[in-house]
């Protein structure tokens, strides 16, 4: 336990605070899911959350999204408590197959997000075409999700989230079910989308290398109940590169530290 607490002190870059967890506790069905979470996410930051399964990573996202409510403490967005879902916070779910409407085409699925806004109908077509183009699905606009590959379905879900023009993009292990090549392509796509728009991202993953590759900061949770037990600043230049970034000494050092952290948590779990 001591060792975990000693891990690197974050050298916080100065950013305007956008999301904040203040002493957050979350109980679900009588079980303590999260305990005493304190965290600030800066505007435009790319924050990755890692940790073993069942440590409450996804619950943290749902709290920010307004899908769950805190049992104690508060989650703030732009300084105000989050009480319900809002247009400018979008969430990308891991199980894209379940999150898309199977009876609507690709274009129709993107349209869903636009229908939730006051955007005039006339502009929808254009927005949809724009978004399809952005994620490379223009040729598949009239296909149903069941006719698309897993990677395309996840792209589609991302496009639907981008249609909300979110200030915050929450991503819940979005690439966990995809093959390695598709995953790399989508990682770079997310990075380029974010780099262009200044979107704040909170990205949950169990893939440590993915977390380092994408993030400005990686926080580690330990389970039962979920607590923040480590934080790592990622000092890697952007834009990042699938080939050269993972070869940098800083990447390798972080990778080692994160692996040690996870191992520590796991052995601790076994002993406890």
């Amino acid at each position, binding site marked *: 336990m001591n060792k975990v607490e000693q891990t690197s002190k974050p050298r916080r870059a100065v950013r305007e605070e956008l999301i904040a967890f203040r002493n957050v506790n979350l109980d679900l069905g009588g079980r303590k899911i999260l305990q005493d979470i304190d965290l600030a996410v800066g505007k435009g930051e790319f924050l990755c959350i890692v940790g073993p399964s069942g440590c409450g990573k996804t619950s943290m996202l749902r709290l920010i999204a307004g899908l769950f409510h805190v049992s104690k403490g508060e989650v703030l967005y732009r300084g105000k408590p989050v009480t319900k879902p809002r247009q400018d916070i979008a969430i990308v*779910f891991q199980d894209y197959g379940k999150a898309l*409407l199977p009876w609507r085409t690709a274009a129709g699925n993107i349209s*869903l997000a636009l229908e939730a806004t006051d955007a005039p109908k006339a502009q929808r077509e254009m927005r949809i075409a724009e978004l399809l183009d952005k994620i490379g699905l223009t040729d598949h606009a009239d296909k*149903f999700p*069941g006719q698309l590959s897993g990677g395309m379905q996840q792209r589609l879900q991302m496009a639907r989230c981008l249609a909300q023009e979110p200030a915050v993009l929450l991503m819940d292990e979005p690439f966990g079910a995809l093959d390695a090549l598709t995953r790399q392509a989508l990682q770079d796509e997310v990075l380029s989308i974010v780099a262009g728009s200044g979107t704040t991202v909170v990205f949950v993953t169990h893939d440590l290398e993915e977390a380092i590759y994408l993030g400005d900061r990686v926080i580690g949770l330990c389970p039962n109940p979920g607590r923040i037990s480590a934080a790592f600043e990622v000092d890697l230049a952007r834009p990042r590169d699938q080939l050269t970034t993972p070869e940098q000494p800083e990447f390798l050092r972080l990778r080692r530290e994160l692996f040690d952290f996870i191992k520590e948590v796991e052995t601790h779990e076994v002993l406890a």
Partner: protein
Amino acid sequence: MSSGAAPRSRFDWRGFVVPVLLVITAQVAAVVTHLQSDSLAAPSEILVAGIEALMDGTVLRATRDTLIMALSGLAIGVAVGLFLGLLLGLSRIADRLMEFSIEAFRPIPSVALIPVAMLVYGFGYRMEISIVAFATAWPMLLFTRSAVGSIEPRLVEVSRALGFGVLARVWKIILPAALPRIFVAFRLAVGIALIVAVTVEIAANPYGLGYTMMVAQQSLRPGLMFAILIWIGLIGWFLNALMIWAQHRLFGPAAMTAVQL
């Protein structure tokens, strides 16, 4: 998943071998035994009686009455069942409130309501319509409730995350997601509507095909009786074929997987 399996539309003559053989056997048997009966009739007699009844309008008038009553009752039953099913599927409180009442009323056989409906409405359309409505509301209610209750929770989360209100959520997410299963209930309800309508006519109501059949039986005209029986069968078959066609039209390749029955 992606293949929109074509309906079994190709004509297969083998399916007709057994019925045709049965009809021929019946006709031969009737001729050979010089059938003279108050309860049986040769296929040829049935055919003649059927054509006569069609020509003089009795069957058509009776068909009109039966269909009007069956379909009106169906419309009311489906509307009520759909509304209650949605309500109970969406609201846990409503479901808890109604749970006992539903379990108490549901086992009542719909035809057991004939005496009650007769007291309230007397003979006629309204009595039969009310019983058909009662009978068809149940499958709609139960299927809709369970279809709504078993919608992919992720879809509900998506609609919440997008900030849809209750009405938009029902209209854009819940109804379309539940529709394939609701349509299965509708198909069941269509069948039930015809069965219950004819039953009410046989048991009590002096209108429609059931009553015409009873009159034929009581006036010892088995040919006409069987002709109407076959006619009712044809109507049932036609309604079911219509439903299957509609099902394919509505749910085509996109969601056909969920509606096999």
